[in-house]
């Protein structure tokens, strides 16, 4: 990515709280109109990173340039370009859907003339149109998230930062949320989304995998999965946990785990596939099937953590 295109640029961005380094020297660029994922478990530094990008928390070291503005030196002047939806977005539960949107429009000084048109558009994407007079406190969890997102978008920001927008939202409402996000990307907005759900990583253009404040990997989801292509197998076998314990110590096996009624086995090399059946048969197990499967993002994450020697 060339320098010119970078809408967001992190330079050794670091944040410490006392002895704890929550974010440890993150450097990467996000291009204009890119849909970028910060993916990692709780405690991996996602929220702290987003709060620094949003200008609500100053970095201890390093910097983030948001559309060219330094968040270490000048966070206030970047704010008109930014929208940030935190995990506890401040909706007023005793105001209606429409009143909440007007409140944020006032806050961001959206001109009256443009306001109605933007609200109609947001209602259309969010399917909130039929509920404009409902109190925000009476909305379901998924609808609240959609309203929060609509409020964050009322001032047409260049960069949208979303902290775990799908947390606690059911799969049906999640689809509507993604639809709104993609509408924004299609209009040229740069979007950075954090999630602890590995399976959501496949939706992003590029993904930064975070663990304990550090960058484990940065690539497109396809590139990440490519590394494990041909190495992940599902095995249907009896005495699952015993079978897992038999396979795990083998040097050809990076990891074996029980999933419901089968094992998932990650090999260190695709050529080792036969070792699964021979080992289990020698151990007196009855193997009912061995199938090569697509590596999941969870497999990818565990692979990188193993490689980084964190285990």
């Amino acid at each position, binding site marked *: 990515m060339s320098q010119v295109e970078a809408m967001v640029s992190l330079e050794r961005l670091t944040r410490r709280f006392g002895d704890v380094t929550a974010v440890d020297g993150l450097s990467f660029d996000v291009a204009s109109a890119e849909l970028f994922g910060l993916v990692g478990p709780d405690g991996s530094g996602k929220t702290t990173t987003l709060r620094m990008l949003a200008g609500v928390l100053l970095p201890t070291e390093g910097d983030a340039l948001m559309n060219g503005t330094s968040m270490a030196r000048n966070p206030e002047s970047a704010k008109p370009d930014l929208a940030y939806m935190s995990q506890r977005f401040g909706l007023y539960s005793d105001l209606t859907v429409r009143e909440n949107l007007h409140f944020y429009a006032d806050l961001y000084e959206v001109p009256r003339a443009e306001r109605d048109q933007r609200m109609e558009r947001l209602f259309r994407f969010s399917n909130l149109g039929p509920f404009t007079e409902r109190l925000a406190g009476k909305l379901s969890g998924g609808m609240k998230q959609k309203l929060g997102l609509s409020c964050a978008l009322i001032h047409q920001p260049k960069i949208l930062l979303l902290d775990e927008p799908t947390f606690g939202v059911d799969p049906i409402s999640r689809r509507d949320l993604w*639809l709104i996000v993609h509408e924004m990307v299609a209009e040229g907005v740069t979007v950075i989304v954090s999630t602890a759900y590995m399976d959501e990583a496949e939706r992003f253009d590029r993904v930064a995998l975070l663990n304990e404040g550090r960058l484990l990997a940065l690539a497109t989801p396809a590139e990440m999965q490519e590394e494990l292509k041909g190495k992940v197998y599902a095995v249907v076998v009896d005495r699952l946990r015993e079978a897992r314990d038999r396979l795990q110590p083998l040097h050809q096996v990076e990891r074996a785990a029980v999933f*419901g009624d089968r094992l998932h086995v990650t090999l260190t090399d695709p050529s080792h596939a036969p070792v699964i059946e021979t080992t289990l048969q020698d151990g007196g197990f009855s193997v009912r099937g061995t199938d090569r499967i697509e590596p999941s993002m969870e497999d990818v994450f565990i692979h990188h953590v193993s490689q980084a020697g964190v285990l």
Partner: protein
Amino acid sequence: MSGRAAPAVRVEGLTKCFGDFVAVDHVTFDVRPGEIFGFLGPNGAGKTTTIKMLTGLLPPSEGSGSVAGLDIETEADRIKRQIGYMSQLFSLYADLTVEENVRFFSGLYGVDRARRLERRDWVLEMAGLTEHRRRLTGELPLGWKQRLALGCAVIHEPPTLFLDEPTSGVDPISRRRFWDLIYQLAEAGTTTFVSTHYMEEAEYCHRLALMNRGALIALDTPAALRDGLRVPMLEIETNDAPRAVAALGDAPGVRDAAMFGRRIHVTVDDSITARPVIASALEGHGLEVGDMTDITPSLEDVFVALVRRAGGAPDE
């Protein structure tokens, strides 16, 4: 797993009405001892109401059920000692040590005095926290807290365990470790109910029950659910995914279109005949049509398709 043993949980025509609203509508299923049974469904589908009836917190309006051999209506009080419960908002005390939490729960659940030490050691060992027994619970990493919460929920050796999004937000390695404990309990005969919105958790269950608008709309293993919904699905590249989804809304032969990153996933009646229809619908809207690939639906795709087929989620 022996299919012949008496069911650990049996529910027949279970129904709950609140005024005119039917929250749970004639639900029937059996759960085998040692089975890990997942409960899925959009918000408002009736999962929580069903679980409240199974745990004796809410009497059914109609129908019947039993948990660990106890009737959920007439023996509701006795059920509470026969179950363990753990939710994502666990009830651990942050300002107590690990050991103190275990002691607290063992008192709460009325574990025999004679067995308390033995059970305490078992819980600490199982959760892998023996060496950390004197640490404050609030200082532990999330994955450890979740294992401790599980240990506390099973300290009284309940035959039935209820988990509500137990591994939400935890790193994948801790999650696998958590599920290993569940499998260990399952092998020893504990029956586990898991309710979740996340397919990552659902994948660990033996069977999944999908609810929508109070009704049970599917019940099978994760693999069978995926295989059963062998509806053809295409992944399509285009230059404007949101507009492409809208453009395919009423195209003939298209059942559902959803965004997946910059691509779209389209459920169709027939993958061969749908291709030209989709291409002309997209081109008619001035959209570019890139590669079209046949794909296998994910568990989440299956979930959404089944909910739509059953009339859509309550919010829609």
